[in-house]
């Protein structure tokens, strides 16, 4: 599965990226995950199954959905899970979102 994490500068999402990688390794899930700045997300959509936005850039969710024409599911990460960098839970929710699509 390929996930794209997006926040303003791709900095804080890179912490989340690390946590989700750890979680995926534990669960033995094959995960390709990348953290990018909002201004560059269009260039990184190849083969992406899910896009996750940091809560601080949730204002961009409609723009992101418009750009991807609804083809890729988009989720704003719950702010508490983001603050606690709860990679386990966010990964589970992402997998569920992709399956339900």
């Amino acid at each position, binding site marked *: 599965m390929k996930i794209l994490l997006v*926040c*303003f*500068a791709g*900095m*804080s999402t890179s*912490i989340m990226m690390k946590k989700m990688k750890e979680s995926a390794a534990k669960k033995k899930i094959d995960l390709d995950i990348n953290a990018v700045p*909002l*201004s560059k997300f269009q260039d990184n959509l190849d083969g992406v199954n899910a896009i996750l936005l*940091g*809560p*601080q*850039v*949730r*204002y*961009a969710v*409609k*723009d992101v959905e418009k750009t991807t024409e609804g083809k890729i599911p988009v989720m704003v990460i719950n*702010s*508490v899970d*983001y*603050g*606690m*960098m709860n990679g386990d839970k966010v990964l589970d929710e992402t997998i569920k979102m992709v399956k339900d699509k």
Partner: protein
Amino acid sequence: MSHTKLQTVNSFAENKLLPVANKISRQRHLLAIRDSFLTVLPVTLLGGVASILSSPPVGSKPIQATNLFNKFLLAWSGFANHYSSVLSWLYAVTLGSYALYICIGIAYYLAKSYKMEPFIPTLTSLVCFIIITAVPGELSFDKKEILINYFDGKGLFTGMLTALIAVELFRFLKNKKVGYIKMPDTVPPALTASFEALAPVIITIGAFFLANSIIVNITGNPIPKAVLSVMAPAIKSADNVFVVFIITALTQFLWFFGIHDAAIGTVVGPIRDHNLAMNASAAMAHQSLPYIFTTPFWVYFVVIGGSGATFGLVLMLMKSKSKQLKTVGKLSFLPSLFGINEPVLFGVPLVLNPLFFIPFILAESLNAVISFLLMQFGIIGKTYIMGGWNLFSPIGAFISTMDWKALVLVIALIVMDTLIYLPFFKVYEKKLIKEEEKEL
């Protein structure tokens, strides 16, 4: 604040603030400007290096080679004097040509945002920029002299406007198919593309050339000088402690709702960078620095440890008896050193937590006000070097000012911020510990 009140406030944020934040921070032209400023950073950093090398921190008093440190300073001074022309040249082609590079960057990103092949519009903007910004001296066959003193901060707004106008004009002409030459299908697409652009490029550059000739002939001054005479008084008057206080408080107000301050940064950022470039040029010319509110001022003196000036708070979190706060503290410490504090904002949380509303706005605003006033009164040196966004604040403060007192100031501000957060932190910690005990 009661729970329902908080919900009202939150829905105000979601319904009213978010759309505005989105509009401003996703606006095409502003976005191109912001991306350009972010991307040319390596070049400006190099300019900062030239600046540092050519300004050893020695005062007007002569120093004696009594100890190793003074010997080092003397050697540095000697180096700076001996190589001053080389260092000035390095500066002139980096930060000293800031406007040129910003113009190229904006044209590139704006063209890209329109999904145009960016090379031709970027090149067109570059030619337009040189036409109106360089001042020709002698232009013979074997000797060409142009003055590039508007390539630096002084030409920044001209450079930004040039890129925006040139790309828009080019795009307009191309969409209207002005001078479009229909090629037979057998002609390679690349060739067709270059023919397509022919008339739009010539007309765009021609328009700038004509405008420049007319304005220079009438006023006797190059265009950047006119632009500057309009912009400079406004920017100079905005460089005061009240405006900086309001910008800081507003930034924090947005962050209180968990909204990134991109909308404010997008508008204020170019002004901060302009001020930095002007200070850098003044420093290279050994003149007094004109501006206080610059990008390094913001990054190193105001946002210490991330939005909300939370560095001191993180230190308290790490030692907290609440499990949740301790977890957040440990998670946040390293990122906080580099000014990243989303775990604190969303994990404590500070966002939408009425208990922290006051310190969250107060700490950072006071950092801004105190630093500003100390610089205004000449007690702390002003900033003229940008050392990268993620430099630890006290070190960044020193490098950006080359004044050791700046380092002391930032450490003092961290202590102050800690004390501002302390009472609120204690109340919140107590509440969490109680809740955590209940859960057991």
